[in-house]
Structures are given as C-alpha cells and as structure tokens.
C-alpha cells in the first residue's frame, strides 16, 4: 500500500474547485485542518451528550427531545455514555493534537514540504470520517448490531491511526530538512514522533483484538471467554449484562489512549511554556527521554496487559486508571516545566494560560490518582464519581487545555488572523473555574459514597449533601458548557474578522513554521529549502541582542548584543 504512493511530487494548483481544494487535497495543511474541523464538530456533539447525561442524572423525569427516546433504559444510557466517550477520546483527544496539529505542523517544523505518503494521509482522513459516521449511527440502532457496528468503526479508526502513525514516523525519519538533526527537533515533533512509534506498536494489537471480537460476534468463535459466557446466559441476565458490556468494551479500547492522547499534549505544552517564558526548555534532553519513557511505559503497560491476559477485555479496569498517573516520566516533565518557568519573564497570553492550566489540571488529577492507587479505595470507587472526576480532570480536560493552547498559539499561522485575546482570557478563566467546580465535587462525592454506611443519620446527611452537590455540579457544568459558546464565538469571529497578522512571527517564536508567511504558501517554504542552524529553543541567549534566535538564522546573521548597543 505504501509502495504505490507516487503522488508526492505532484502538487495540485490552489485554484482548483472545492472538491480538489478541500475534499481530495493531499496537502498536509488541508488534511490537518480537516482533522481539526472534525474534532471541533465532535467536541460540541460530545459536549451536548454530556449535557444530556447530566440532566438525565439529576432530573430523570424531565423529557428532553433526544432523551425521551432513551425511555430511561440503562442500556440506552450506557450507549450514550460510550458514544460520548468514543467521540471525545477518539475523535477529539486522539485526532486533534496528533492528526490535526501534527499533520499541519510536523512537516513545517522539520523543514519538509509534504508528508511522506500524502495519498495514504488522505485515505486515513476519510476513514476517520467514516468511523465517526459509524460511531454516531450506533446510537440510533438496536443494541446488538450497534455493538458490532461500534467495533467495526473503532477498528476503522485504529486502521486510520495506524496509517497516520506510519506516515508521521517515516516523515520524521526521512524527510527532515537540511541541518535538522535529531537534537534540533522541536519537542512537539519529538512528541508526535514518539507517539507515532507507540501507535505503530499499539494500534495493531488493538486491531487484532477487534478482529477477534468481531469473529466472536459474527462467526461464533470463542476468543473472549466472558463474552461467550454472557452469550450462554438466559435472556434476563443478558439484559443486565449489555450496559456493562458497552462500557467495558469502551474502556478496553480507551486504555491505550491515555498515553496516545497525552503524549502530543506534553510536547505542545512544553513548547508553549518555553516560548512564552522566553527561556530554553530546562533539561531538554531529559524531557525527550521522559517523552520516550512515557511511550515505553505506555507500551509496556498495554503490551503486558494484552499479552499476559490473552487480550481479555474484562481484566481489571483499575489497572488502566492506575497506569494513567504515568509515574516517573510525568514527574520529570513537571519538574522541567517548573524549571523553565522559574525566574522567567512569563508572557501571560491566552495560549500560555491554557498551558499553565494544563499543568494545574494534570497536577491535581495526578494527586487524585494517588488515592486511586490504594487498592481498597480503587476497588470501591471504580466506575464511580471519583473515577469519573479523576479521569476527566487528568485526561479529558487537561488534554483539551493543551489543544486550546496550541490553537491560540497556531491560529495566526493557520488563518493569518489572531484570536481575540480578551475574549480568550475570559473563556479561559470561566472554563478553568468551571471544570474545577464540576470535577472536584465529583471526587468528593466518590469519597462520600465510599465512607458511607457508618450510621443511618450520617447516611441521610451525606445523601442530602450529595444531592445538593450533584445539583451544584450540574449548574457548574451548564455554565462551563455555555462558556464554550464564548470560544465558538471568538473562533468564528476571528476566522473572518480577527485582527490580521502582518508579520510572519508574531510570537517571536523560534521554530521553522514561523519563518514562512501566515498562512503558509502551498509548497510550505517557497523556492528555497529551509536550512536549520541551531536547536529549537534558543531563547535569551547571553550576548545576543534579541531574546530569541530562530532555527533558520545562520550563526553569522545573529546580532551580538555588544554591537547593537553601539
């Protein structure tokens, strides 16, 4: 499949029709943007679903347009939960930071003009669209075919991700521009690259699991013993088992996602923090090693899980949640971020705020992970509010913050206009306060549920406090969701009316994408190939007039501070 991809040297003219410019374009920038549009659509769809679920939990009697068709059946609710999770985790958290920003900026940052296999890239994008369509359809059809369709859609998604991972790793290995040695790669590229390698290893395991699950469902084989156990039970038992099956299936596939989604976010946040602290990344080599560590760790956790249990989707869920706290490499990253921020002239623009928000969320999520690591606690809290809170804080919201930070950072490069900063800051603070108000009480609820049953009076007070808290969560969540409307307004308004960017490098950043016009020309770098002379984070060098030196500036072009002062 890779060998017949010979269209790399062929560039279509930007004057083509809508189809050739947007739908069938093999340009990496168009495909990257298409992924981002897909994620934007999915995130609002997923958010609408969480709203439905929340309203359903607090006021089960209320009839909402879509919800009344749920008929309060636990199975439909489980299907809704699974769909919310699939959309958010697969199409937002996986697709946006890796396939979206990665496709757009990986070639630009390494000095390549294309991805290694542009046609494969296009194919992968449309396979992802097909999987989104499949996932959404599962909600509309009866449960048994829906689960099959869900597995097929997920398999298609992994296959597309696998093609993407192949494309990313080959591009990083073979298409780097002149002078772009491995130590000079920006950390974003490192993160995308390591993530692609991790994906190459993990996604095919997932595909194997999909094949086995599908043959169990369609051909009557017996790879997953518990599935066949469920199938052999009388009808009443099955009805109870189906919602659990839905959720377990989702977790089975989403485990690996913790790493796949977080890795590019680590890269993005490190990049943002260095740029807006005007300081080099503290211990850059160590950060690269830590990113590799996250990848190796992620693979080991997953591989061990898959190999030793023979791919049983019903092995303990706790395992995944423990693993999500990432351990040593996360600590190294955290120390490096703090080391970079230490004593820096921090520029608090919206992109930086979101990066700092990411650190805060990641830290508090990690702290609650310590609670989960206690076995007895975890056993009681699984699939409870505590886990919901922990998981959303550390992965869902934190990763979304990294994505938003990257969007505020790169929006000007992608569209030639700036996102509105004051609207962006308002959006940030509302969201930041909102997610803490939603997910922190959720932790507390989980703890209360655990410590309950001591005495009847305590039980009653806990229950009443619990219901008050649930209402608080719901209100906070409604406000947070509406705050996202602010983002949507800002996004759409800035897209058409935003302040135009006149310079190539508004942030005074160092990497190669800032050396070209905004938006970049069709062939990325114009008539000359870029040449790289230095590392990616040369900020505030002693003896240099400017506080940054872009990667494409030759040593003899750098102005010495002494001379410029004369």
């Amino acid at each position: 499949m890779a060998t017949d991809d010979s269209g790399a040297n062929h560039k279509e003219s930007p004057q083509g029709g809508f189809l050739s410019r947007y739908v069938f374009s093999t340009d990496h920038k168009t495909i990257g943007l298409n992924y981002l549009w897909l994620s934007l659509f999915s995130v609002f769809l997923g958010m609408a679903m969480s709203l439905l679920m929340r309203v359903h939990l607090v006021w089960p009697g209320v009839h909402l347009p879509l919800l009344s068709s749920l008929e309060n059946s636990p199975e439909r609710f489980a299907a809704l939960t699974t769909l919310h999770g699939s959309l958010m985790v697969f199409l937002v958290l996986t697709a946006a930071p890796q396939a979206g920003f990665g496709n757009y900026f990986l070639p630009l940052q390494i000095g390549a003009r294309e991805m290694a296999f542009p046609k494969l890239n296009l194919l992968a994008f449309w396979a992802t669209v097909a999987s989104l369509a499949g996932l959404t359809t599962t909600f509309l059809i009866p449960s048994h075919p829906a689960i099959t369709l869900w597995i097929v859609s997920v398999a298609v998604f992994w296959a597309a991700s696998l093609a993407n991972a192949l494309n990313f790793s080959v591009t990083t290995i073979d298409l780097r521009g002149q002078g772009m040695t491995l130590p000079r790669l920006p950390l974003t590229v490192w993160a995308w690259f390591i993530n692609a390698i991790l994906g190459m290893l993990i996604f095919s395991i997932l595909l194997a699991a999909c094949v086995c699950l599908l043959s169990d469902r369609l051909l009557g084989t017996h790879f997953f013993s518990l599935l066949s156990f469920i199938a052999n039970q009388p009808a009443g038992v099955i009805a109870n088992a189906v919602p659990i099956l839905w959720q377990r299936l989702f977790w089975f596939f989403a485990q690996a996602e913790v790493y796949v989604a977080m890795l590019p976010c680590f890269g993005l946040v490190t990049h943002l923090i260095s740029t807006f602290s005007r300081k080099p990344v503290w211990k850059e080599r160590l950060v690269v090693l830590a990113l590799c560590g996250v990848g190796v760790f992620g693979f080991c956790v997953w591989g061990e899980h898959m190999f030793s249990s023979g791919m049983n989707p019903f092995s303990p869920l706790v395992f995944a949640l423990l693993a999500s706290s990432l351990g040593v490499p996360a600590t190294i990253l955290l120390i490096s971020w703090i080391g970079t921020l230490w004593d820096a002239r921090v520029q608090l623009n919206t992109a930086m705020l979101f990066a700092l928000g990411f650190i805060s969320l990641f830290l508090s999520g990690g702290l609650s992970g310590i609670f989960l690591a206690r076995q007895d606690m975890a056993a009681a809290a699984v699939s409870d509010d505590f886990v919901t809170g922990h998981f959303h804080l550390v992965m869902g919201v934190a990763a979304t913050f990294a994505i938003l930070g990257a969007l505020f950072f790169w929006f000007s490069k992608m569209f030639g206009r700036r996102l509105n900063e004051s609207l962006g800051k308002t959006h940030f603070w509302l969201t930041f306060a909102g997610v803490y108000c939603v997910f922190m009480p959720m932790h507390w609820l989980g703890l209360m549920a655990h410590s309950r049953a001591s005495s009847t009076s305590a039980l009653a007070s806990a229950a009443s406090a619990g219901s008050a808290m649930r209402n608080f969560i719901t209100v906070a969540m409604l406000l947070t969701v509406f705050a996202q409307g602010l983002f949507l307004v800002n996004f759409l308004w800035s897209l058409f009316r935003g302040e135009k960017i006149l310079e190539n490098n508004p942030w005074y950043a160092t990497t190669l994408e800032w050396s070209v016009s905004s938006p970049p020309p069709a062939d990325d770098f114009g008539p000359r190939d870029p040449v790289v002379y230095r590392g990616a984070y040369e900020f505030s060098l002693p003896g240099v007039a400017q506080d940054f030196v872009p990667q494409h500036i030759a040593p003899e072009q750098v102005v010495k501070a002494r001379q410029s002062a004369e």
Partner: protein
Amino acid sequence: MPGTTATPDIEIIVEDIGGGGGGPVPPPGGGDDGGGGDDDESHRRRDWPASPRRYSTAIALGLVAILMFFMALASAFIVLRRGSGVWVTVHLPVVVWANTGVLLASSFTLEAARRRLALADLRGFRKFWMVTTVLGFLFVAGQLVAWRQLVAQGVYIASNQGSSFFYIFTGAHAVHLLGGVGALVYVLARKFGETTVSRLTAAEVASYYWHFMDGLWIFLLALLYLGK
C-alpha cells in the same frame, strides 16, 4: 554573508562580517542530502520528494506493526491454550505442508528475479517475478483447499478454540499475503520510466514484505503444530 536567506520580517539585522571574506558556514550536523557543496546549491529547493529511502523505512515500520498484530494473536493463542483444560486439537491438513514448500520456493524465485534485475536482465527478471506471483496465488489456493478439507471433516471456525485459531491465523496471513501478491503484480505491471521510484527500489520493498510473510508463515505453522 548577506542575502542568502530572505528574512525581511525577522528583526535580526544581518551582520556584515568584514566584507564577506569568510565563506559560508555549512550547517553543522549535516542534512539529509549530505552534499556539502555550494551554499546556493544547498538552499535551492530539492527535487521533491527527495529520498526513496522513505519506502524502505515505511516497509520496515509497517512490518513491525504487522508483527505486533500477529504477536497479539499468538499470545492470545498461547494464553488460551495453556489455560484451557479441554483443548481440541486440529490436525493440520497434509496440503498445508505442500503450501509451505510452495511459499518457500517463491522466496527463492523472488531472489532470483532480483538478481536478474541487478544484472539489468529485464526479461529474466520478469520471468522469475511472474513465477513468484504464480507461486503466491498457488499458496493462497492451497490454503483454501486446506480450509475445504477441514470443513469436510466437520471442523468449522466456531467448532472450538483450536479451530478458531487455525482459521484466524491462516485467514489473516492469507489476506496479508494477497497484499504481497498485489505488490508483486504492481511491480510487474507498472512502467518505471520517469517516475520517482526506481524498479530496483520497488522490487526491494516488495521482496522485504514477501520474505517477511514467508517467515511469518513458518512461525505460525510452528505455533499451530507445536500447540497441538
């Protein structure tokens, strides 16, 4: 060194070092091309895409991914085999051994074809390449015969875990091998004139895949045979 890079927007003023006496400093560390050469030369845009190396890299990484796919299945086989008290053995049909011989032979004819190609003997290359393709088809047909024989014995995919694994292993391998046959046909049919990929590269990449499929089949066969 004024004027080599057009960076009007960057606010770093180009410094004039003593009348431009010193030659351009090539970027340390070297790039993809490796050609030091004239500065102007190295700045001009390359013929895109530059390196056919990406095909070899892609096939190497792709093979790792395929290996992981089969390793996941193999580990499931081993775990389930060890864990189950009543494991019904699947007796491998005799034709499987003949198929193995056919596949092994195809690897040798493939190498013979590549040697002809290296000697610029295009006719010989085509002949041996064609033989390889036919052997590939023969192998897949043979696997179908093996399936038919098992079905005739009343062993279906859903009969027991052992038979499930036999069908899944052979089926997944056959699908991958058909991809390889497709690649062989493609190399045979494509005109390599002005294209960026040379026939040598294409044949090399296809041969990696083919030998890998060959080795993978030996591994799967050993697994099924020893796991009886």
